[in-house]
């Protein structure tokens, strides 16, 4: 990789500044990408990473600064211009047309003759690229049938199909399972080996250290430092990013468990395609207890969470909340009973992007005092509480009246967490609560979950981050194809390998015994 250090950069951004009203998102940033390297952008939520890359991708126009591609000054006014210059970006929320097939998505929006090539030629090219970079995906499949990981592959494929030489990946791993991350990294390595440049954004420091050749750290829109990706430690990176030392260990007290809050009895539920997703699932959680659910994404976790908050019909079985049978109850009754739900899909479900912070707080509170009286809303009280959440959860925002889609990804997540974790929920169903959060915020949110536990809330924590579920949970259940493979009573007494076997569908008795006898 050393030879690449001397090569001329593929793209060079100089003195880039961009302000949104009063927010300085980027202030005089210098950034470049050389052929054959992975250059990582690291920084707290709202540091300006996505803004910088959106500028490179032609979505935003910088207030000042220059972009040079292979030594030539360029000015992009749309992603189309950027891709024409060889710069492709994969956003965290995908930009695919769900009802079309993979190959149709490839040629969508292509200029000129390329859009009307025969299907055979297109599919041939797709197959060439996918074998070369290990991006296996069925060209005839419709996008909505694909898993999140596969959709991401299609996005990358689409950029390579358009002959991108520089690929920007904005938090690509937050939606992936560990296996898929591994797979993605192989693809990235193949691309850099061929001289492509990759910009990588992630909050997971282990990943950053594994894949980066260089790391540029941003803080409040400015470059703190650009350092080599070799020989750095996690602690060092975290400190440079946040400006203080970060504790990675979780400090958990032993609690006496209270009454049973949630009990499910043989719950079955279907997924969106009408196939069984949760099968005969029984579990219970008591006050002051965190039940972790580990499993590979797409094994019924989302369906389970939705069934437990009334959003998904239950085919068989019962859901009992504090002794009351809630099977078939309307979502609002779950909310009123004190069930907080943190969905994984914050943009599509947890928040309304076009509405402001106050309105998004009100989303889950409009039905109760003091936020409404009778048929009328009390915006004053809403604003008061929203302001407190913004302060407590450190949501960086120019005000309470801006649409939440203008907040950075991590700040949106903070707002949603603030809404669900403030107040006195009885049951918290949390799906991937620390997705997209920087290290500081992750620490804070874990702390908040533990505080709710100490207060007496029952918590169902779904996460693909094994380290996270193992550290936070009092008990840990492993889910596979909608079934519980086993419940571990002491998450610290089980190895990641044993969990891995259970996640692959081997029941606990066999998994644990099998390990020991080896």
């Amino acid at each position, binding site marked *: 990789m050393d030879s690449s250090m001397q090569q001329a950069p593929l793209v060079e951004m100089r003195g880039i500044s961009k302000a949104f009203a009063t927010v300085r998102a980027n202030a005089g940033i210098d950034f470049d990408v050389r052929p054959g390297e992975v250059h990582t952008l690291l920084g707290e939520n709202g540091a300006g990473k996505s803004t910088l890359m959106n500028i490179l991708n032609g979505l935003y126009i910088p207030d000042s600064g220059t972009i040079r591609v292979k030594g030539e000054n360029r000015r992009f006014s*749309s992603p189309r211009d950027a891709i024409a210059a060889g710069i492709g970006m994969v956003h965290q929320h995908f930009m695919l047309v769900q009802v079309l097939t993979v190959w149709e998505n490839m040629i969508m929006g292509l200029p000129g003759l390329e859009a009307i090539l025969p299907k055979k030629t297109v599919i041939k090219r797709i197959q060439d690229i996918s074998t070369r970079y290990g991006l296996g995906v069925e060209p005839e499949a419709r996008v909505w049938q694909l898993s999140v990981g596969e959709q991401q592959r299609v996005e990358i494929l689409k950029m390579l199909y358009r002959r991108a030489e520089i690929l920007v990946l904005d938090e690509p791993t937050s939606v992936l399972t560990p296996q898929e991350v591994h797979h993605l990294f192989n693809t990235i390595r193949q691309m850099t080996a061929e001289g492509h440049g990759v910009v990588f954004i992630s909050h997971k420091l282990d990943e950053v250290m594994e894949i980066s050749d260089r790391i540029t750290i941003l803080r409040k829109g400015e470059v703190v430092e650009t350092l080599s990706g070799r020989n750095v430690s996690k602690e060092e990176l975290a400190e440079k990013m946040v400006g203080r030392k970060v504790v990675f260990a979780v400090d958990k007290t032993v609690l006496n468990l209270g009454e049973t809050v949630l009990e499910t009895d043989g719950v079955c539920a279907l997924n969106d395609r009408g196939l069984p997703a949760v099968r005969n699932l029984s579990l219970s959680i008591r006050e002051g207890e965190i039940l972790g659910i580990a499993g590979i994404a797409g094994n019924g976790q989302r369906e389970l969470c939705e069934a437990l908050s009334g959003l998904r019909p239950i085919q068989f079985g019962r859901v009992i909340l504090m002794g009351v049978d809630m099977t078939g109850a309307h*979502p609002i009754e779950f909310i009123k009973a004190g069930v907080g739900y943190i969905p994984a899909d914050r943009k599509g479900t947890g928040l*309304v992007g076009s509405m402001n912070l106050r*309105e998004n707080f009100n989303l889950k509170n*409009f039905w109760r005092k003091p936020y409404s009286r009778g048929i*009328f809303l009390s915006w004053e009280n809403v604003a008061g509480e929203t302001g407190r959440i913004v302060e407590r959860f450190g949501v960086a925002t120019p005000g309470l009246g801006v649409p939440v889609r203008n907040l950075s990804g991590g700040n949106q997540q903070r707002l949603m967490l603030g809404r669900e974790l403030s107040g006195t929920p009885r049951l918290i169903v949390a799906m991937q609560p620390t997705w997209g959060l920087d290290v500081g915020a992750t620490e804070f949110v874990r702390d908040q979950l533990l505080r709710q536990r100490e207060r007496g809330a029952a918590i169902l924590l779904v996460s693909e981050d094994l380290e996270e579920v193992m550290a936070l949970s009092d008990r840990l259940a492993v889910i596979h194809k909608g079934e519980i493979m086993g419940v571990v009573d002491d998450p610290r007494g089980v190895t990641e390998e044993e969990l891995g076997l259970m996640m692959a569908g081997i029941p606990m008795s066999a998994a644990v015994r099998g390990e020991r006898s080896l």
Partner: protein
Amino acid sequence: MSAPFRVERRLDCPAWLNWAIPVGAVATALLAGAVLLFFLGVSPLAAYTAMFRGALGDAWGLSETIVKAIPLTLAGLAVGLSFTMVVWNIGAEGQLVMGALAAVAVVRYAFVDSAPVMFFLMFVAAALAGGLWAGFAGFLKARWSVNEIITTLMMNYIAILLTEYFIYGPWRDPSSLGFPMTAPFPAAARLAVLGGTRVHVGLILAIFLALLFRVLYRWTRWGFELRVIGNNANAARYAGMDYMKNVLLAMFVSGAVAGIAGMIEVAGLQGRIQPGFSAGYGYTAIIVAWLARLNPVGTVFVSFLLGALLVGGDTLQVVMRLPLASVQVLQGLILFCVLGGEFFRNYRIVPVGKGE
């Protein structure tokens, strides 16, 4: 890159554009219309002066403009309500007609002499008629996901034909010398007018409802639910908002307000119904709602503008002896430019060379 300018996406729309865009659009339309008028052999200046005078220049013109703005406002509020939750009630015309028909029925069969009682009965009947007419489409949508655009549109034709059946048939006025129209309303069923003009108390009702809708959207739980559903139906479900119930309710209220528009038009202005009595207010209302960006108070102003355009066009026909078609082209140009102006809300034009 040979074009001398390029189009860039705007991130947000500065406040001054909210005023500059409509004003610029109208100016552009008038300019384009001037060319048209010139080739028709008419002095554009004289034509525009006549239009302006006709619509706003004297008490008569002004009152005509207001009289047209009243049903437009009411119907605009009605469709705006359903649009807010992204349900497309484009059947305001049919609901308006049903409201008018219900008012006629009340006048025919309820023998009351008291004007307030009469008003109350007509009001309730019209609201119910329009509300149920739209509510039926709402029910089909909520229960079986039937596309409301099609049902509401089709039900317009049913409503209009039904009304014509009554006008030509059982409810035709025997003393109308064979003309298809219903009997004139008795005095008790007519709305009070302001001064000696044709402007009736429907004006007050329209403004009152606009303010009421503003309060509804801003300050009530139901209005909040409507807006959330319209912005993100998934999030609304997640927040425990009931989509089916809200579709039904929104369609009912939307239809009810459109029905009231019909009743007000008949009781306030025409005093009877005849074929084509609505002049397509229910359709124009869709344009009103969009131009007002679903804002209730904006709806009042946009209705007034469109009312002026209609009246001004009439004047042009009479004074300038222009054919009806050319007047409609002129009106179309203005709408075209205003709608086209929306582009500048999202994009801006930048000369090439800047920043390079």
